[in-house]
């Protein structure tokens, strides 16, 4: 009897937890999926396909939310939603498809979102702060799913702000194209012609030059310090804290 009660209690608590999660999922759905010309209130559609009453099972829903649908407006939400939000919205869409009591957290393969705090959290914002225009780190670096991967992934985080400002960039060369000299980050020197980034101004421009039209030399006057000038020391320290938190050597 005691055992039966315990099981029952467990079931009740699971159910209560489910209801909370589904409720959270409804909120996530309302602000992420129901909006604009997308899936509409309660998945009834306002442009994108109807999601209610389609007979979707939970694995299918999780898969589509995680991976998106190629060549449609349906993007992957694997990194755009936090893990709890993801679980919740999948559960909610399951209830729209007649699954009264969805399983929670069945989507084990998803990357867990990292929670950042303090300086690292501030650094994450500074790294990609929109009002900085092209003077932000994310103009050339992709970290944590944001930014343009002009530079190779950051492998080593400078130890101090001073070291950050003194960073050398041995890969940056000087290119001469049509008589004009420019700092260049070379991607390839293949037979069909070299591909490089012109670093003269931000944002960097990928140039595809005809074979034999560019002359590269191994040094450049370009300095990384010239493109981080809009950040002060305290901001750079926060950015370093962020990079340390997310970049694992």
């Amino acid at each position, binding site marked *: 009897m005691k055992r039966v009660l315990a099981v029952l209690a467990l079931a009740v608590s699971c159910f209560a937890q489910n209801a909370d999660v589904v409720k959270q999922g409804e909120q996530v759905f*309302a602000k992420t999926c129901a909006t604009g010309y997308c899936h509409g209130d309660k998945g009834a559609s306002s442009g994108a396909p109807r999601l209610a009453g389609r007979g979707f099972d939970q694995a299918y829903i999780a898969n589509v939310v995680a991976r998106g649908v190629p060549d449609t*407006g349906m993007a992957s939400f694997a990194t755009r939603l936090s893990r709890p939000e993801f679980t919740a919205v999948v559960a909610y869409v399951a209830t729209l498809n007649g699954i009264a009591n969805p399983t929670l957290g069945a989507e084990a393969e998803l990357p867990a979102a990292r929670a950042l705090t303090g300086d690292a959290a501030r650094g994450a914002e500074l790294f990609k702060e929109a009002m900085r*225009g092209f003077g932000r780190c994310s103009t050339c670096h992709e970290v944590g*799913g*944001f930014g343009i991967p002009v530079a190779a992934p950051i492998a080593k985080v400078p130890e101090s702000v001073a070291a950050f400002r003194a960073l050398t960039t041995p890969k940056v060369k000087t290119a001469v194209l049509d008589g004009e000299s420019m700092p260049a980050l070379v991607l390839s020197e293949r037979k069909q012609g070299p591909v490089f980034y012109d670093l003269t101004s931000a944002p960097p*421009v990928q140039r*595809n030059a005809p074979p034999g039209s560019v002359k590269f030399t191994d040094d450049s006057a370009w300095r990384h310090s010239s493109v981080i000038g809009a950040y002060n020391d305290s901001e750079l320290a926060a950015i370093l804290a962020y990079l340390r938190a997310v970049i694992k050597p």
Partner: protein
Amino acid sequence: MRFSLILLTISSAIAQDAGATHADWPHYGGTQFSWRYSALDQINTSNIKSLTPAWLFQTGDYAENLQATPIVVDGVMYLITARARVFALDAATGREIWRYQSPEVPRNVPGFIGSRGLAVSDGKVFFGTKDNYMVALDQKTGRQLWKVNIDDARQCGCNITAAPLVVKDKVIVGGTGGDGAHRGYITALYTKNGRLAWRWYVIPGPGEKGNETWKGDSWKFGGGSPWLTGSYDPALNLLYWGTGNAAADFYDAERVPAGSDKTKDVNLYTASVVALDPDTGKLRWHHQEVPADVWDYDSAYEVLLMDREIRGRLRQVLVHMNKSGLTSVLDRATGEFLGAFSVPEVRTWIAGITEDGKLVGRNEPQLGKTTTICPSAAGAKSWNSMAYSPRTGFLYVPVNELCNDITPNNRAAEEGKNYMNGEFPVKLAAGRSTYSHVDAWDPVTGKRAWTLPYKYVLLASMLATAGDLVFTGNPEGEFFAMDAKTGNRLWSYQTGAGHRGAAVSYAVNGRQFIATATGWHSSVVGAAAAALFPDQDWRLGSTLVVFALPEASR
């Protein structure tokens, strides 16, 4: 008196020539005056019945429909598809000269799939991509010359879907994202090397004039994205562009400063037409059409430049419609307001407009309540362009009579995420049996000259020609021609798929062609409109269909 009359005739002739295309269709809007008018008249009202398909081109890109306006230069057509596949075709035969395939955009990039066109200039072909790359190809070979990313779509929630505009040594482009928490902008790059020339933010930052028309920090996420293509007047050296709606779309309490006078200049420079210096990107003047917009009434639409006599004086004017169907006529040198008229037959968002252009009787949706607003946020006219014929002096406009039930909410902004702040299911205007019409409007008198009703919706651009013909297509697949003077339907051809793109006219070796994009739009406005007519099954597709008179009959 006679002398001034002659003078008028001469300057009109100059303006008329500047706005018309001839053998080429060199720009998105035809010329940079954006008339979508061809001076070719080989195909005309007397022989239109013989118009027949000459060739067609299947793009093979069926991710979305074909929305792009083709560009034709020296007998070569340049065409871009939804996923930014670019083709150069022999414009007389459809033979492929080269093709360029953009890399697949990563699946976690949010936003719209679609491209409304490209630009050709300086020996290059320019276009933007969903993930915000601006790309330049060699016009002769299709080889990529440069590309540059102008924003991370995963962060801004914005994409490039518009055709760029080339002005002198710069390629200029707007972006989407104004229905999200985003601060819209226009970006100019040097055609030669892709380097940044300037960026103009629709919303002024702290310390800049106009920032005071925003409450607190709301300017950071106030939308305004100029998501279509502007116009250019070389004589005045002014660039004209329409800007998007303010965000949050349907709820303004977080962005309108307390005590604002909503009749003028609130949330600048959203829902406006602006004149910029193309060399520097500096604002010269602005005219805001919808201050403190709460209906999602973008003003991002095309800007038509023409010279017309108004109240006895020849004026250099600009004609600009926003989503509400409210159409402004301004002096394009100074921005002076000369008049306005409203095109939809069903209108509930305002009671009217004063002679000096102020909105009267605003019907604002209230937080948590549902208000029926007409026209709908899909637009009295959608993004597709109107046309203008200098022979009739009429604008040709596809108008839809739809409404939406707007229920605003006050959700907080999250960067790059949807920030419409409202549900707004679209519905048919009540008490009607037809829900759209092609209209001819005289921009000087503000009067409708004729109207041709249609049962469903009209979401394709218009083309006018010197043969006194006006062309467009409907969702059922018919591409049809009307008499520009009367609106009589003279000819139609079933192309096999719905129309949501644009038609152009050009000539090769003396033979005039009319080319139209086909394929119904399967998401956003196209899907929302289709849902209103559940018994219809408007066909998707991505095919360019090209018409001419039979060789023998020329």
